[in-house]
């Protein structure tokens, strides 16, 4: 068969190529460029090799913010995943309650991130905010702008409020895809509610839960806007997660080299964790 040679088709790829170049490849390469050089403005660059990477990897400041980041992500996953599943289990499966619940659940997800931050900031203010005022008036010494524990508590509460819905919606979709016959079979066997959950619902939700954990991990690991508006990383540096610390370094101190190196390390950590997690889940999948 004779193949018609027509290279014009390549023109159709150009828009995508340009788009990807401008929004991913070129910015990333700029960061790579900065991470190996020192600049004093005026477009003067000096080669520094891996110096910035070594500096970041050995810096206590980076270790601290990375530690805070992992702690934060770990805590919110620990709360949001079980809570999300629990809420999904109690949601109605038919009737008018379904749309009502779904709409209520989607609400927090529709609110812009900085609005969430601002909302919670006002909500939690110890003197005028509903939450802060109530806590103080019932006897708690609560002030999220001054006490690190309270700042963490508020940030975590805000994230749980904002994002648990995502886990709920995914779990709910997973639960709804289970055929009623499974429940009946369990009922006939005389299985307890817990056994039904453990041996039918949980295995059937595995795929959506993997997705939920992965999404919540990535999102929370890259969290910026909400804690920035709520606490600004404070008090002190106690809620300065990786991205907040990164912006401080890049824009606050204008340390472009170290900041670029830190972004790349940050990027690789996210990539690595996702890859490892995904492969572990898929390996289990292949076994079963």
């Amino acid at each position: 068969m004779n193949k018609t040679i027509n290279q014009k088709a390549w023109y159709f790829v150009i828009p995508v190529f340009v788009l990807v170049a401008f929004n991913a490849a070129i910015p990333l390469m700029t960061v790579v460029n900065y991470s190996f050089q020192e600049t004093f403005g005026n477009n003067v660059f000096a080669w520094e090799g891996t110096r910035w990477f070594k500096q970041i990897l050995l810096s206590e400041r980076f270790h601290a913010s990375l530690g805070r980041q992992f702690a934060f992500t770990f805590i919110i996953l620990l709360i949001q995943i079980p809570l999300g599943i629990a809420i999904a289990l109690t949601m109605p499966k038919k009737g008018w309650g379904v749309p009502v619940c779904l709409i209520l659940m989607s609400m927090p997800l529709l609110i812009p991130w900085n609005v969430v931050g601002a909302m919670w900031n006002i909500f939690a203010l110890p003197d005028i905010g509903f939450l802060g005022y109530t806590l103080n008036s019932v006897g708690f010494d609560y002030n999220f702008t001054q006490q690190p524990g309270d700042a963490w508590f508020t940030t975590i509460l805000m994230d749980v409020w904002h994002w648990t819905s995502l886990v709920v919606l995914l779990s709910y979709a997973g639960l709804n895809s289970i055929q009623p016959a499974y429940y009946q079979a369990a009922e006939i066997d005389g299985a307890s509610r817990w056994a039904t959950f453990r041996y039918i619902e949980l295995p059937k939700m595995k795929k959506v839960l993997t997705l939920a954990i992965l999404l919540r991990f990535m999102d929370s690991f890259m969290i910026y806007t909400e804690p920035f508006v709520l606490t600004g990383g404070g008090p002190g540096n106690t809620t300065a997660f990786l991205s907040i610390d990164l912006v401080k370094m890049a824009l606050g101190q204008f340390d472009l080299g170290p900041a670029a190196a830190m972004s790349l390390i940050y990027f690789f950590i996210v990539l690595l964790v996702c890859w490892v997690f995904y492969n572990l889940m898929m390996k289990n999948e292949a076994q079963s």
Partner: protein
Amino acid sequence: MSLELKNVEKKVGIDTHIHPTSLKLEKNTINVLLGSTLAGKTTLMQIMAGLDKPTSGEIWFDGKNVTGMKVQKRNCSMVYQQFINYPNYTVYENIASPLVITGVKTDEIKQRVGKVAELLKLSAMLNKKPDELSGGQQQRTALARALVKDSDLILLDEPLANLDFKLREELREELPKLFEDRDCIVVYATTEPSDALMIGGNTATLLEGKVIQYGKTLEVYNKPENLISAKVFSDPPMNIAEITKKGENCKFTDNDVQWKSSVKIKDGTYRIGIRPHNITTYKEGNNSVEINGKVQISELSGSESLIHFTNGNLSWVSLSNGTQQKNVGEDTKLYMNTDEFLYFDQNNRLVNNG
């Protein structure tokens, strides 16, 4: 031991899913619920099992009123159209699960699971998980789970519907044997008349939430009480026409085909039902009559030939043995075995039931 439904009715909102039904199923019988989708087979089974409560009426089991008693407290098991097994249990654990829950000793579980697995040809795959098995094997696992328990009532809800043809045939042959020497009542729901004939036992024909007729399968098939029952228990669909009878002579209203009938009924107009396999391309029986037909569709199904044809206003199906290829639009001659005609009166009741 028997299962008795007394005037059981099920309403959901304003819809009636099951009209008042009374049915008595005896011990050691296989009972087929035959009807199309939405006929109420599944609802009826769920009521029998106690998964669903009737709106009114009572269920008696073994001389006791069990209406409203929860399914866990009754000794029954169920197999579904979908292959329902615990996804992350092995086949062994799946089969053992009903026994584990009721606290049977490990040794006994081992022995009973082994026995059932052998019966259902699952011995080689006891350590596999359900997704590693073929559809047929998954359904065998589900069947094994139902059998291992020694239930008083085993409900099979279209268990073969999701299997491919070969597996279906294979399992269909085995099924009646599986229940042969068991002290239980088996209820088998299906949409296919051929399933009912193959399984035998008793059959209840259902339509739109009503039990039309219940009795020995062959009796229901050969002597349907009425036209509806005959229609439900016929695949391909039954051919129906209006006739007039005068003395021994019968004649279709729609054409001039005539035959002599020895059926002892009054003169008048009747409706007759002719099963497709009683209209053939060859003569069958001593009293066959000829009918002309214009071929609409001609299809082969295994070693049988289905010919859809029209004759005036009549649009009928015939089923002949062997491969009889006809061209569409061709005029052809077919033969009806008049001995097998079912005569129904104006109220659609069978009249030649003697």
